[in-house]
């Protein structure tokens, strides 16, 4: 299995398409499993998907995937054609999902540039066994027809197998005028003879009405040998002329020799034809159209035509390109500001310029919004994936849980989606594993047998809230507390800590790395990984629980990382940007409100409440003339229910800023506390974006 001939874009496309199809199929299977019978559309759809995967993987020479897909396809062929009764759908789903997992694994290997070397023979064997069981339930009259579609390595004689690609219309067979016999020989050592032959057949697809070829099964390993030794022989019926066919065939790549002759019903053709008629009549017993396989092909085409007509046309674009576009638009927003706010224009009366500038500003901001919206993806895909996790977990643990999805249409930046998929899966797993009780236990507690996990997403200002709620047993407060004490995570006396704070202890790193946690607190393996992932995208995670009633985990995630609404402030010569969402208010302080404690910590009294003050010029060692509170301004910020007063020289103004990371070199040198990144201001100067959570930490540890 060499893929050195395969070019990268094709491989990429194969990976992308197959993954999409597999995901789609998973959803279908899970949706149908619940109703314990497969809807006929679903079966058709799955059949189509497997057929596509089989075809494309065979094209790319991933034979293992192809044969596995083939076996699955056969299975659904039986389901579709014979509608057997008493099928164990649960077992079927298990088998098929297992198969899909295998394909996914192989594709992952391919993506990483490894050899797809997995062995699917066991899987194929169990698929065959299942196939035989359901097949055994229907009359033997259909066997002949079935063996047409089954795997090439099955025991029936190979010459009985037919490999049709043609779109036969029975009525037309007699009206076709010309019959040709073509023999193609390929260059020695050109490799992949069967694939080349397949290509020839494909090329002819539109010209010939009907064709047969020797060897018949191009998938079969032997076909390579046969073609290289005896050439590839093709019989075709068409109403095109000899020249037209010749012109097409002669273009074949690596072609050494081509013989094309017009034949009058050669014996060979008739033989093949007869066989063909038999199988046609056979299948005609059940369905009016010539053969199941072709019907599928036709249906598929029709469907595609239909869907392409009704669906919005969609193209897939790489995220890297979108990022680039985003960056460029960001640059443009800044460049626009540089032009329209150019200091050279100061004091000039430029009516027409102002008009044009306004127009430009409008367009750039619209452009920015559009680019942002392009990157937004609904959470539905990520949420749907959880169905699979749920199903597998429930089977393994013998629990009964249903997943309720709310607000799937909520949109989030593509980058963020990638970061939250794993944490979500982890949280769901935790909920099933530790939260939801066994069905019997639930009944004795007076809860419904069926546990419920609700996954809800909603917009809240510039953030998206994702809430994972289960109706399980909830956290055990005392155990968490004991564990935290043991680990030295809390020092305060028991009554000085609220329930909510206790529950949030499980999110602390170090708390969950302990193996005992699972049996101990009931929650938490890998919880700090979840926290880390969420924090990586600037999100916040909180936990709450009602003992015996269930647990709620809330993820607060910013809509996007790329652009924030910021308030620019000035300290000395430096500029800083504070995310507007964090700002509660800003005011000029009265000296009487400032309190200084013996450790020289400054605090401020605002409406009866006391907040600590952070002098930006102090912590960042910025030279400024404004050191008196009465000269500067206080900006009150809040994050995670903690409030802080930041002292700066003055406010510059509010602006949408494009967040840029600090240069790698700086980040490698030192992680500066309280800095989230930087941004370019309208005049081309750089402003540092403050990380409020970091600043609050500053004050607490200082």
């Amino acid at each position, binding site marked *: 299995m060499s893929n050195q001939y395969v070019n990268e874009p094709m491989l990429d496309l194969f990976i992308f398409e197959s993954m999409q199809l597999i995901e789609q199929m998973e959803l279908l299977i899970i949706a149908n499993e619940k109703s314990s019978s497969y809807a006929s559309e679903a079966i058709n759809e799955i059949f189509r998907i497997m057929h596509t995967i089989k075809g494309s993987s065979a094209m790319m020479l991933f034979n293992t995937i192809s044969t596995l897909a083939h076996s699955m396809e056969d299975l659904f062929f039986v389901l579709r054609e014979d509608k057997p009764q008493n099928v164990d759908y649960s077992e079927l789903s298990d088998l098929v999902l297992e198969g899909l997992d295998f394909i996914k694994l192989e594709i992952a290997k391919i993506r990483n540039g490894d050899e797809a070397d997995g062995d699917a023979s066991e899987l194929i064997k169990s698929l065959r066994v299942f196939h035989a069981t359901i097949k055994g339930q229907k009359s033997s009259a259909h066997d002949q027809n079935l063996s047409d579609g089954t795997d090439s390595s099955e025991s029936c004689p190979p010459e009985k197998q037919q490999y049709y690609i043609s779109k036969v219309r029975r009525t037309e067979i007699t009206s076709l005028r010309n019959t040709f016999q073509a023999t193609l020989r390929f260059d020695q050592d050109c490799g992949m003879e069967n694939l080349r032959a397949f290509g020839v057949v494909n090329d002819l697809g539109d010209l010939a009405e009907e064709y047969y070829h020797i060897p018949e099964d191009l998938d079969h390993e032997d076909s390579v040998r046969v073609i290289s030794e005896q050439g590839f022989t093709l019989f075709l019926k068409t109403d095109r002329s000899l020249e037209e066919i010749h012109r097409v065939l002669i273009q074949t790549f690596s072609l050494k020799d081509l013989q094309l002759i017009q034949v009058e019903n050669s014996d060979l053709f008739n033989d093949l034809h007869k066989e063909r008629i038999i199988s046609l009549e056979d299948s005609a017993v059940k369905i009016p159209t010539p053969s199941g396989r072709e019907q599928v092909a036709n249906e598929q085409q029709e469907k595609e035509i239909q869907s392409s007509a009704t669906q919005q046309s969609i193209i897939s674009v790489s995220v890297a390109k979108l990022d680039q576009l985003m*960056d460029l638009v*960001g*640059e443009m927003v*800044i460049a626009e500001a540089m032009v329209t706010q150019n200091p050279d224009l100061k004091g000039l009366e430029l009516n027409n310029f102002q008009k044009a500038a306004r127009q430009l500003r409008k367009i750039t901001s619209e452009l920015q919004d559009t680019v942002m919206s392009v990157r937004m993806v609904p959470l539905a895909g990520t949420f749907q994936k959880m169905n699979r996790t749920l199903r597998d977990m429930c089977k393994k643990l013998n629990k009964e849980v249903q997943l309720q999805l709310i607000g799937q249409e909520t949109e989030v930046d593509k980058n963020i989606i990638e970061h939250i998929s794993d944490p979500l899966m982890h949280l769901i797993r935790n909920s099933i594993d530790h939260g939801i009780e066994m069905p019997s236990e639930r009944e004795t507690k007076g809860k419904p047998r069926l546990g419920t996990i609700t996954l809800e997403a909603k917009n809240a200002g510039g953030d998206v809230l994702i809430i994972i709620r289960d109706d399980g047993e909830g956290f055990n407060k005392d155990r968490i507390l004991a564990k935290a004490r043991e680990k030295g995570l809390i020092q305060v006396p028991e009554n000085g800590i609220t329930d909510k704070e206790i529950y949030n202890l499980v999110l602390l790193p170090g708390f969950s790395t302990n193996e005992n946690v699972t049996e101990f607190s009931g929650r938490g393996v890998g919880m700090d990984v979840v926290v880390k992932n969420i924090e990586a995208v600037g999100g916040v995670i909180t936990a709450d629980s009602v003992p015996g009633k269930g647990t709620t985990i809330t993820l607060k995630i910013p809509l996007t990382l790329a652009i924030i609404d910021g308030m620019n402030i000035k300290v000395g*010569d*430096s*500029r800083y940007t504070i995310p507007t969402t964090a700002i509660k208010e800003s005011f000029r302080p009265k000296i009487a409100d400032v309190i200084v404690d013996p450790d020289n910590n400054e605090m401020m009294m605002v409406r009866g409440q006391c907040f600590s003050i952070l002098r930006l010029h102090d*912590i*960042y*060692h*910025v030279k400024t003339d404004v050191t008196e509170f009465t000269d500067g301004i206080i900006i009150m910020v809040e994050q995670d229910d903690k409030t802080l007063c930041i002292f700066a020289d003055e406010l510059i103004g509010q602006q949408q800023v494009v967040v*840029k990371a*600090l*240069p*790698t*070199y*700086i980040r*490698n*040198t*030192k992680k*500066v*506390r309280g*800095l989230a990144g*930087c941004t*370019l201001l309208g005049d*081309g*100067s*750089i*402003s*540092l974006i403050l990380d409020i959570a970091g600043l609050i930490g500053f004050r607490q540890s200082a």
Partner: protein
Amino acid sequence: MADIVEQESLDESEDTQKGKFLTFCIGTEYYGIEIKYVTEIIGLQPITEIPEMPIYIKGIINLRGKIIPVMDVRLRFRKPSREYNDRTCIVVIEIREVSIGLIVDTVSEVIAIPDEEIVVPPSVTKEGNRYIKGIGKVGTDVKLLLDSDKLLNETEVESLGNL
């Protein structure tokens, strides 16, 4: 096939750049840096300070929308700092996709120093020539050839404490 051609052209451009150094001046010494690392030379720009950085990292600049850090080579070599003037330049170098600007007193010229004219620095001094990987002889002059990799990647822990 295309790869081979690309490789060849890459080799070629590497060949033309090989043995060439951009020389610049700090105080009385001349330093050289391999030309293949140099992206561009720009005049002094407004620098945004970053708090809590070692003293030789002056901050970040906006280079046509790209934000890059700048390092004062003078301070990096523990020489007394000097007022920047109109001859002060920022040499932007890129090593393994990390861009950084080096503030130097003046930029001199690009010269070719053949391998045989480069000698290994004496290893007697303990700290001083950590960033020098060779000494190039050009006529009667001597140029100190910088090891850009070390310049970027060896952080001086002690200078962090000075803050």
